[in-house]
C-alpha cells in the first residue's frame, strides 16, 4: 500500500486501473473530464491494457460498455449530470440485459438553469433504472467502493450495473491523501471477470430482443430478485475487502453516535464528513444527536433504517436534490421504510446544498437545531432560509 495525493476523479481512475478494466468508453463532461483524461493517459502509456473507445456521446459510451460487458469484458465509464441523463435509455438496457459494469458519476446539478455545482438530481432521477447506487464521502471511499462494486456486480447472483458517485468539486476536484492498495493484493480480491459471457461468438442467441408478456414479466422479476440479493452480498464482499485490503466500509448505512441519540440526521456524500464534526460539537454541549451516512441508495437499505429508527425519536434526512411534487428523494424512502413499524420516529425532510450551495458546519448546526425543536415533515429548503429567500418555518 502506498499513499498518493489524489482527487476524487483521480481515485476513480486509479480504481479502474487496479480493477484492470478491459474496455473504457466515455464522453468528457465537466466535472468528470479528468477521470477519462487520466484513463486515456494510462491506456496510451501502456500502464493499463485496455481498449479505450472514443465515442460521440454518452449514449454511445454506455452502449459500447454494455455490449463489451455482454461479451465478457470488464468495462468502465464515467459521466455527470446532462451526460447521465443522455444515458438514461441505456441505463435500463444495462440492468435489463444483466450486463455488470461500474459507472463513475460526478454528481452535478441538472439544467436549466445551467450549473456545474454539486447536486444529486442527476443520479436520483436514475434511481428506477435498476442500477446499484453508492454515495461515498471521501476519495478513499471512492476508490474502495469502485473496487468492491466490481466484485459485487460481477457476482453470478447479482449481474447488475452499479454507479459510484462523487460530489462535484467537493470530491471530484479535491486533492487529499488516498491509501492505494498494491495491484497484486487487489488481484487476489478481484480476480479477472468470469469469462462466461452472455453472448458468445459462434453461439446463436438473442439478447434484449422482443419478448411478449409471457416472459417479459419474468425477466423483470429476475432483476428485482437480483436487486434483493445485493445487500447481503455486499456484506460478504465488504468483509472480504476488509480481510484482504484492511479497510472496513461499513455497509449501506453507517451510523455515528446514534446509540442514545434523540435526533439523528441521515446524509449522503460529502455532507457526512462535516456532519460528523457537528455531531461531536453538539454532543460536547450536551445535545444528544447523531448522524448516519446512507452509503447505498439503491437498493434502499430498508432493514438498516428500521433498525436505526428503533431507538431514535426524530430522524432528519438531508437531501441534496428534490423530487418535485414529493419530498427529498431519500426522505421519501426513509418514510416509506418506516411505515407500519410500532411508534415510528418523526421524519423531517431537509434540502441543502442544491446546485453547489456550500453546506458548512453552521448550516448543519441549523439543521440539527431545527430537528431538535420540531417534528414538522418539511420539506425545508435550508439554502433559501439561509439567504432569506424564504421564511424559516417548522
Amino acid at each position: 500500500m502506498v499513499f498518493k495525493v489524489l482527487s476524487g476523479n483521480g481515485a476513480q481512475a486509479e480504481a479502474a486501473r487496479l480493477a484492470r478494466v478491459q474496455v473504457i468508453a466515455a464522453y468528457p463532461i465537466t466535472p468528470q473530464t479528468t477521470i477519462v483524461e487520466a484513463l486515456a493517459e494510462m491506456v496510451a502509456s501502456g500502464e493499463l491494457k485496455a481498449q479505450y473507445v472514443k465515442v460521440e456521446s454518452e449514449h454511445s459510451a454506455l452502449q459500447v460498455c454494455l455490449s463489451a460487458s455482454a461479451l465478457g469484458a470488464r468495462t468502465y465509464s464515467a459521466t455527470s449530470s446532462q451526460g447521465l441523463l443522455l444515458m438514461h435509455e441505456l441505463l435500463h438496457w444495462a440492468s435489463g440485459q444483466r450486463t455488470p459494469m461500474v459507472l463513475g458519476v460526478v454528481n452535478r446539478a441538472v439544467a436549466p438553469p445551467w450549473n456545474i455545482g454539486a447536486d444529486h438530481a442527476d443520479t436520483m432521477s436514475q434511481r428506477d433504472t435498476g442500477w446499484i447506487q453508492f454515495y461515498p464521502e471521501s476519495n478513499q471511499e471512492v476508490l474502495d467502493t469502485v473496487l468492491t462494486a466490481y466484485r459485487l456486480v460481477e457476482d453470478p447472483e447479482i449481474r447488475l450495473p452499479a454507479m459510484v458517485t462523487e460530489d462535484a468539486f467537493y470530491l471530484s476536484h479535491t486533492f487529499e491523501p488516498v491509501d492505494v492498495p498494491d495491484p497484486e493484493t487487489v488481484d487476489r480480491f478481484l480476480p479477472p471477470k468470469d469469462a462466461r459471457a452472455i453472448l458468445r461468438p459462434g453461439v446463436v442467441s438473442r439478447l434484449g430482443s422482443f419478448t411478449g408478456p409471457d416472459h417479459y414479466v419474468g425477466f423483470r422479476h429476475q432483476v428485482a430478485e437480483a436487486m434483493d440479493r445485493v445487500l447481503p452480498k455486499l456484506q460478504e464482499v465488504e468483509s472480504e475487502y476488509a480481510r484482504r485490503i484492511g479497510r472496513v466500509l461499513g455497509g449501506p448505512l453507517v451510523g455515528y453516535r446514534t446509540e442514545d441519540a434523540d435526533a439523528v440526521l441521515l446524509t449522503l456524500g460529502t455532507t457526512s464528513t462535516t456532519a460528523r464534526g457537528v455531531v461531536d460539537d453538539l454532543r460536547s454541549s450536551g445535545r444528544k444527536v447523531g448522524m448516519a451516512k446512507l452509503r447505498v441508495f439503491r437498493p434502499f437499505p430498508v432493514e438498516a433504517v428500521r433498525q436505526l429508527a428503533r431507538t431514535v425519536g426524530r430522524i432528519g434526512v438531508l437531501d441534496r436534490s428534490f423530487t418535485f411534487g414529493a419530498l427529498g428523494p431519500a426522505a421519501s424512502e426513509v418514510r416509506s421504510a418506516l411505515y407500519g413499524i410500532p411508534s415510528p420516529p418523526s421524519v423531517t425532510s431537509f434540502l441543502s446544498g442544491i446546485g453547489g450551495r456550500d453546506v458548512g458546519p453552521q448550516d448543519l448546526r441549523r439543521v440539527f437545531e431545527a430537528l431538535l425543536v420540531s417534528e414538522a415533515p418539511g420539506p425545508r429548503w435550508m439554502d433559501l432560509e439561509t439567504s432569506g429567500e424564504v421564511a424559516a418555518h417548522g
Partner: protein
Amino acid sequence: MLEIRFHGRGGQGAVVASELLAQAVFFDGKVAQSFPFFGVERRGAPVTAFTRIDDQPIRLRSFIENPDVVVVLDPGLLRDTPVTEGLKPGGLLLVNSPRPPEAFSLPLGGRIATLDATGIALGRKVGTATMPVVNTAVLGALARATGAFTETSLERAIISFVPSHPEENRAAARDGAEAVRTEPVAPSTVAPAPAPPAAPLPFPEGPMASRPSHVLHTSSWRTLRPVIDRDRCTRCNFCWEFCPDDAFDLDAEGYPLVRLSYCKGCGICATECPPDAIQMVTEA
C-alpha cells in the same frame, strides 16, 4: 488547522496550484485537503480555491469562510471582489502585485505580503506572454511567507507533478520565495465603516436569468487589453470571428473595433490575427 483561500481567474493555474500545495503538504508528512471551485468554466472568470492543512484527518468538506491566509493571484480582483472577507484578525494577505505591501490595507490588522508573480512568470516563460501562469511563483512566496509547508517539498511536488516545463516552474517558485516582501499591519485605528446590511439576493422570477449577457460586462476579468495597429490590419476579420465574447464591432471602413466593456482580455484575437496587428498590453 491552517486554512488558505485563493482568489484567481480561470487560466492562472488555481486548479494546479491547489493540487501542488496538497502534494507539498503531504511530502511534509501532514494532511491536506485542497480544492478549487469555479462557477463558469471560462478563461478569465473568477476562481476560488481552498486548502486546509492539519496534523490530523480533516473533518470538514465545505468552503473556507474564515481563512488564516488569503492569496490573490490577480490584483485586478481587488477592484470588485471582497477577497479579504472573513480573513481572521492577524491573518496574512498575499497579493501578486509589483506594488509594495504598504500599497494595500488590512483594517483588522495582520500581515500583508506582495510579490510580482506575473513578472516572474513572464521572465521564466511559465505560461504564455498573453497568459502568464503565476501559480508556482505564488506558491513559492506562500511557503516563504507562512512556513506552513517547506520550499523543498514544494519543489519536489513541482518536479513530480507539473506536466510541462517543471524546471522553469521550480525556478519561478524559487524566485517567488526570494521576491516576497512581508510587512506587519496594525489594526486600523479608524473604526471601519460598518458594512452595509447585505442586500437580499435579487430573486429572479424565473425562468429568465436576472442578468442577460448584454449587461454582464466581462471587462472586469481583463488584465491585458488588445490594441489594434490599423496600419498592419488587413481587415480580414479573423479577430471578429474568433473572439469568444463577441467583443468586436466593425467600423464604417471595415476595421475592427474592440468594445472594451465586453473584452475579457483572453488574447485569442492577438493569437489569431494573421499579420500580428494586435498587441496585448497590460492594463494600467
